[in-house]
């Protein structure tokens, strides 16, 4: 059950509550059952319509919804034998990024993803999914490991950004992200990233320079948070709703900009209202892309990946 209900979710949640109440009161009577079914259909329809026309700001809120499934939720749904691997072998283990080997669709794959916490205690442990340099260095280590043994790599992106802290700077946050990018660009195994929630700037991209970029329907991906952008360009953090629209950060925006390769449909009302069906759609897309990429040899993979990023950008010539 929801712990937080967004403004635009309210009418639907209320209707669902009423249906539930009615079900309880009806005591299984046949006439009522028909009425309940009709109401349920109405609720579904209402939800579908509402969620088909979300504003960019509503999409941002949904992407950050505290009930939204996180990396470990999807790992639990679509893989077996997940073996978490930890530590960067240099300084620490960063719980804001999780990673490990597992079985997916009959293959061994490496999964690496940002991990947010479900409550305050977990969030303190996970640092709200904002990784420090050791998180990115752990990710690099796991990527090399996967490459060494020829396993595909799946990256789940869900972070507000890399952590902007004192220690993070002292230990080279910039270098950790930069070297992740260079490493990803030359990996000889298939790589796929999926933005499952928030794709926040360099901290997201550091595990996102992949052969394919997929996005869940209500995920967002941006160069800066709407709030950060608003406080710099509008000089008013409260202008974040406007900034969210200007930044063109929804999955559909990213697809039309030629960056997102495929949008994965979520359960009606968002992934948090239907983890199983969302995870199933995710698994199906991943299966298809892994199969396609595994058919390519290493040289072709690396060359195609280079070309993919080489042509991103909007240039005019004088």
């Amino acid at each position, binding site marked *: 059950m929801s712990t937080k209900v967004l403004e635009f979710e309210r009418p639907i949640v209320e209707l669902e509550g009423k249906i539930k109440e009615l079900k309880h009161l009806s005591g299984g009577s046949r006439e009522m059952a028909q009425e309940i079914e009709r109401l349920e259909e109405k609720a579904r329809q209402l939800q579908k319509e509402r969620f088909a026309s979300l504003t960019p700001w509503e999409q941002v809120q949904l992407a950050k919804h505290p009930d939204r499934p996180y990396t470990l939720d999807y790992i639990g749904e679509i893989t077996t034998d997940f073996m978490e691997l930890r530590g960067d072998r240099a300084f620490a283990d960063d719980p804001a990024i999780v990673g490990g080997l597992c079985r997916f669709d009959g293959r061994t794959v490496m999964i690496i993803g940002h991990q947010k916490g479900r409550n305050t205690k977990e969030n303190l442990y996970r640092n709200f999914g904002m990784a420090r340099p050791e998180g990115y260095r752990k990710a690099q280590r796991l990527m090399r490991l996967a490459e060494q043994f020829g396993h595909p790599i799946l990256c789940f992106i869900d972070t507000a950004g890399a952590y902007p*802290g004192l220690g993070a*700077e002292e230990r080279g946050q910039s270098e950790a992200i*930069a070297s992740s990018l260079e490493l990803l660009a030359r990996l000889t195994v298939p790589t796929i990233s999926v933005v499952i929630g928030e794709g926040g*700037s360099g901290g997201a991209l550091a595990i996102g320079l992949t052969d394919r970029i997929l996005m869940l329907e209500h995920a967002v991906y941006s160069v800066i948070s709407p709030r950060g952008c608003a406080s710099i360009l509008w000089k008013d953090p409260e202008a974040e709703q406007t900034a969210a629209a200007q930044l063109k950060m929804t999955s559909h925006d990213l697809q039309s900009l030629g960056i997102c390769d495929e949008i994965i449909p979520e359960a009606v009302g968002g992934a948090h209202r239907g983890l199983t069906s969302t995870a199933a759609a995710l698994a199906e897309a991943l299966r298809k892309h892994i199969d396609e990429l595994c058919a390519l040899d290493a040289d072709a993979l690396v060359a195609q990946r280079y070309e993919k990023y080489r042509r991103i950008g909007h240039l005019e010539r004088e």
Partner: protein
Amino acid sequence: MAWWRRKKQQLETQTPEEKVSVPKGVWSKCEACGEITYTEELIANLRVCPVCGHHAPMPTAERIEAMLDEGTWEEHDTDLRSGDPLSFADQKPYSQRLEKALRTAGPRDAFRSGVGTMAGVPVSVGFFAFEFMGGSMGSVVGEKVTCVFERALELHRPAVVFSASGGARMQEGVLSLMQMAKTSAARGRLRAAGLPYISVVLHPTTGGVAASFATLGDLIIAEPKALVGFAGPRVIMQTIGQELPKGFQRAEFLLEHGMVDRIVSRLEMREQLGLMLQLLGTKPKTDQPAAQ
């Protein structure tokens, strides 16, 4: 007012066009020690204060002249202009900001790329132009940086990039973010080919530029007191809710924390870079296509 806007205005007063119109004999005051110097003398000294050694901001045109051997600079990619792919507008439309920058900043975007020699060593080289929208990296900057690396590969010579940037250009949204990916991938090809790349970090280098090719140099060289970091000091202060230690993220701090190889004065930069490139050398060219 945002920090990068202030910086820009400060730099605008020193663009080459305006400099010409400044009458001789005008004095400049050192930001660090307050020493008054003839502007002309200061420029001749590469805008390094003769008393305290403070490195004042330097217009890109002057830097290019100072860093390359006389008469060897040949600029490339000059036809590239930024568009407005997102039709972005904050308090002012991006297209207007671009127009204004084109009118006043001097450089045609926030990066100038080309070839030349540095203390006798042929290089493929690029310079961030901080005076153009705070040196922010949009599609054009990303493309030009990529060209610096690709040209180095093509000509089989080292690459040198002088960075000074507030980071990715927000007005081009996620396209700017992806320039980090594009440039880092291009840099990787150079490494695979055994060609050296020296990253020179200037004041200030932050955000997406710091978190991509600027920290991927085989050698990373900083100008004295240059501020280099992922997040700007203000963001960090807001996050942790306390004052930052003195000298935080400055070149000397970076040296102490193992993030840069050397701090080199602007007055010795060209000779030092030339020497470093000679010492590094390049792997002989193979007939195989550039390793990916």
